[in-house]
């Protein structure tokens, strides 16, 4: 059976594909940042809880994360909506197929995320009273979030490989995974390690901000956070190499000089990551964070190229018919502007709450 023949026909899109690519990448980067803060923060909190066992008080770093964790989950979920939406616009026919093949796991995503979310709230609201049980609570949240990431890694890789889809005919019950894909584990690890590193850097950023406001506890956050960033990024270097080598050869070679754009983007990203590492090792949090942000953006672009390279023999969203309906997009744009202003105003209002009198 020709795997290409299994690719479902795609529907027309309302405006040119480039706009959706832009929206997909932009919102995906935002989602990644929130997700990294969430997962990285949760893992660091778990490590803190494990490290702080036997101590009478909850370590301040853990406390700082506990308060913020529900926000990061809310943001991750919310900011996950638009990239998933725009991904469906471009690649819905592939994504739905992979989702059906692994439907049982796919559906577990929201249940696992919900459990993690409630666990995070319990962890936040009952941190002090939970005692040692809090390790289990945050451990449960971490486990669920890691599982969600694993399901996504499977889905995102399976959608790129129509050759693996024939597994459906042996098992149509929706319990397939993409375990035979050599890129699965390094790719999964890539995201998890990035979360530890960026989550750590986010913690350091929080500490740095607090330190500037005269909060002495901020220093500890910076120390812990940078540690996670540095070690996470170093591990990422090794895993990145593994990931690269696990790619199909013709795709791997694109990133090793076979294509200027592929090679340039990847290695610029790597260089930016190394720069962030150097800056972090010197304790310079804001520039390290800026470099890390640049790395995330470059890696997101690289990921997009990687996806296109995988799909090149089968499918390209640029070939989708366009129905040319701009007015709903303009409504969205207007809503985005108004919404952003409102959010900015709300956050300012919240920051100033309690200080008016």
């Amino acid at each position, binding site marked *: 059976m020709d795997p290409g023949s299994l690719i479902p026909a795609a529907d027309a899109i309302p405006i040119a594909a480039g706009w959706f690519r832009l929206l997909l990448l932009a919102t995906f980067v935002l989602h990644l940042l929130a997700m990294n803060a969430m997962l990285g923060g949760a893992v660091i909190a778990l490590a803190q809880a494990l490290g702080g066992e036997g101590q009478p008080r909850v370590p301040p770093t853990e406390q700082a994360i506990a308060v913020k964790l529900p926000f990061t989950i809310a943001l991750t979920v919310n900011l996950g909506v638009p990239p998933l939406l725009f991904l469906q616009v471009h690649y819905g026919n592939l994504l739905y197929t992979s989702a059906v093949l692994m439907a049982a796991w796919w559906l577990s*995503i929201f249940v696992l*995320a919900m459990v993690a979310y409630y666990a995070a709230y319990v962890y936040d609201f009952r941190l002090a009273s939970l005692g040692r049980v809090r390790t289990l609570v945050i451990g449960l949240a971490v486990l669920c979030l890691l599982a969600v990431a694993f399901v996504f890694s499977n889905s995102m890789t399976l959608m790129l490989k129509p050759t693996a889809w024939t597994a459906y005919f042996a098992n*149509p019950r929706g319990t397939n995974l993409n375990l035979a894909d050599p890129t699965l584990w390094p790719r999964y690890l890539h995201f998890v390690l990035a979360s530890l590193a960026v989550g750590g850097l986010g913690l350091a950023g929080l500490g740095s901000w607090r330190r500037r406001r005269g909060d002495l506890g901020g220093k500890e956050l910076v120390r812990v956070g940078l540690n996670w960033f540095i070690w996470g990024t170093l591990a990422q270097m090794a895993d990145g190499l593994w990931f690269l080598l696990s790619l199909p050869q013709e795709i791997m070679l694109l990133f090793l000089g076979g294509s200027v754009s592929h090679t340039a983007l990847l290695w610029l990203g790597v260089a930016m990551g190394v720069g962030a590492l150097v800056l972090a090792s010197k304790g310079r949090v804001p520039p390290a964070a800026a470099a890390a942000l640049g790395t995330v953006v470059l890696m997101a672009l690289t990921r997009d190229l990687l996806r296109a390279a995988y799909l090149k023999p089968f499918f390209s969203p640029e070939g989708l018919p366009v129905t040319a309906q701009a007015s709903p997009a303009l409504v*969205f744009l207007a809503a985005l502007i108004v*919404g952003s202003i409102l959010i900015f105003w709300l956050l300012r*209002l*919240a920051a100033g709450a309690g200080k008016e009198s």
Partner: protein
Amino acid sequence: MNYPVWELGAWGGGWLIALIAVAHVYVAHFAVGGGLFLVLTETMGRRTNDPAVLDYTRRHAKFFLLLTMVFGGLSGVGIWLVISVLHPSATSVLIHDFVFAWATEWVFFLVEIVSLFVYYYTFDKMVPSKHLLVGWIYAAAAWVSLLLVNGIISFMLTPGGWLTGGGFWPGFLNPSLAPSTAFRTFLALVLAGVYGLLTAVRIPEPGLRTKMVRWCAAWLLLPFLLMLAAGWWSLAVLPESVRDMLLGANPEMIAVGRVGVWLAAALFLGGLLMVLRLPRTASVPLAALLLVIGLFYMGSFEWAREAGRRPYIIYGHMYSNSLLLSQMPQAQAQGVLKLARWSQNKQITPENRQQAGRELYNLLCSSCHSVGGPMHDLLPLTAKYGGFGLDSQLDGMGKLLGYMPPFAGTRAERQTLADYIVRNLHGKQEEPAVEFKGQELPLEIPPFDAHKDAYVLLCWNDLGMHCLTDDDQQLMILPPANTLQAQLIKRGETPKLVSQGVEISYAVEPGHSDPAKRLPFWRYAKAIFGKELPPGVGLAGKGLNGSMDYDEKLGVYEAKFIPVSPYPDAGGFNPYPLFTIEAKDKQTGQLLARTRVVAPVSSEVGCRNCHGGGWRVDNLAGMASATGEDILATHDRINRTDFKRQAAAGKPVFCASCHADPALGMAGDGKRLSFSAAIHGWHANYLTQRGAEACQACHPDSPSGPTRCLRGLHVQMGQDCTNCHGFLEDHALGLLKGEQAAGKPQAAALMRHLQPRSVASLAEVNPRAPWVNQPDCLNCHRDFAAPEAGASGFNRWTKGAEELYRVRGDEAGVKCAACHGSPHALYPAKNPYGRDRDVVQPRQYQGNALPLGANQNCKVCHTVEMDSEMHHPNSLRMVRSLSTD
């Protein structure tokens, strides 16, 4: 037909969506109404400067945050995930056509999250006016979210102008957007009250508790009537087809609607109760109960919305099983397995039949049905069918009952799917039908001396087969009522028909004289026909033995409605009991002539083929109770009658009491279709594109069955029912057109999907009245000559009863049937219960099985050779191509 199908088994049938969606929307509506509830409750607290009210608001806000943001937010994601795996094609349409509605909704979702966080976490820290403003921003953002999502959901039910030209705005601004948004808005406010009660009843301080409980009850009660009004408005704007579906064309809606009404009433009543000062022991459980009632009410509403959309997922565009409406012709012509991208078995072979059946099930059925699960379980729905019945059910799907789509595949795929469901899902191993081999019952042909005997007595049955139904406890279609007619001819050079001075008696053969022994008819005759009948006496007062009456108009002796049974007194089944007929001089009592005739009667009525149940008698014939019960239940479900209960209460249903049946002399109620038109019209939709097997599915003429009622010369010439009556579709259309002509517009619904087969168009089908307008023998036998090749009896009807074969006679008054035998058993007929059973009289009078007087054997009556074709043209011609034996 674009995507793989998740094989869910028991979890299919929409159960997952229902589970996730109902839970989500219940909380999501709270997220909308609850926002306004929070800000207005806070406003009340601020205005009255009541810290206790504010404290309640803050605590309710926490509950609100934890429920709506976590459960509401994540279950919303869950809906996305679940529809993408259960209905990927529809999801793709919703995403691609409305991507910017979703994107805009996301913006408002983000505003909701931020404003709710700010609202909750700054409750006691922010300047009240600004805090309230934050609350208002939340409430507004939540409502806009509802509007946007509802635009897309309502689009699925009423796509409006999108169907013709596509486009975002025609789809989004669809006809039901405004009323359904109004309905959901008021529902959200009601639910805000329901949820509010949950926290209010837990307030420890009695005064505050009462105040807040009443406040919440007001939220529940005040928008309630507006919600009902908006519900009415929503219903009013729906296209008629959708509204019909909601109002009961989809039978499951009757129960759902009823439950919805009761739940709404319970919710309102609960709200009223809450206004009273109830003790906490009562108010706490009542608040919890109201929450549960609210959930089920919401569930019934969402269920109704989904049910109203059947059989589509996007109304008028995409069926629930993802097939596009525009793809249906291709699927039916080429096969859905070929059309589906994710099928492996493109061609059905004996080897892959089971796998192909499974694929067909997944593609066509599994989006709405589970196998053994809690939602739309296919197993009980199909339990009654065998392969033939289910194949027929699939054939008729989506034609008369619009909540299912038409079967989207070829005939072979339909049979394969039916087979798969029957054999694999039900595990039924249908035994191949055991062919009834026939039997040779003893028959003594009365003697006839051509030289001495002065009379020829001819007798026949008016129909050639009388069917009866014997589940009399539940329903009556046809009672035992066999009519025998006779003519006595005094032989001579100019024979004479005798019409006076004689008594013609009839007597059933021994062993058939006590029909009441095995037929339940007499136990229910009073309930059905309104008159008490002594056992063994028929509807016209005739028993199994008696005298015939002379009918001046017909010119025959007749015994009407003899209640002869196909069940011999001692057991078994014999659809051809013999009667002995004797003519005696009335004055002297001298026997003038004696002959025998079969009174064909059969209960091999094949309702069970589709309605389930077994045969009542000896696995051969008779309607089992389960069959009758299913017929009534089906009638009840489709026509909203109450027959099953009525029958159980001791009042069997007599079909002809509503549906006119000239065969029984019943005029019906004058409004409904005649029984013939209704029963043929309905079932023809389920039995299309078949030959005589469609007729044999119901009438006792199965070639492997124990009756084989078509046994005359035509069947020996290789003909079957369709040669005279047309195919079932033709037959039904003629009857339905007759009903239309008689001013019964409801016939059109049955005709809509029927295509004539014996003529090119519906316009060419001539209307006919049942039992009166029948195919005329002379259609084929023009001027009594041999038929031309390809001649068909269909579509030229006898103009009135007087032209019917069974009524017609020659100029001398001799009836056609007197010489040629009963309809369906024309001489030389071959009876499966004995070679000569249907040809006693030809055998008796002329020693062969041919029509009386055939091959110039005029001496049977005339005693001399004749050279005039007085009876009909060609009557002196030698018999063609048939054995003269």
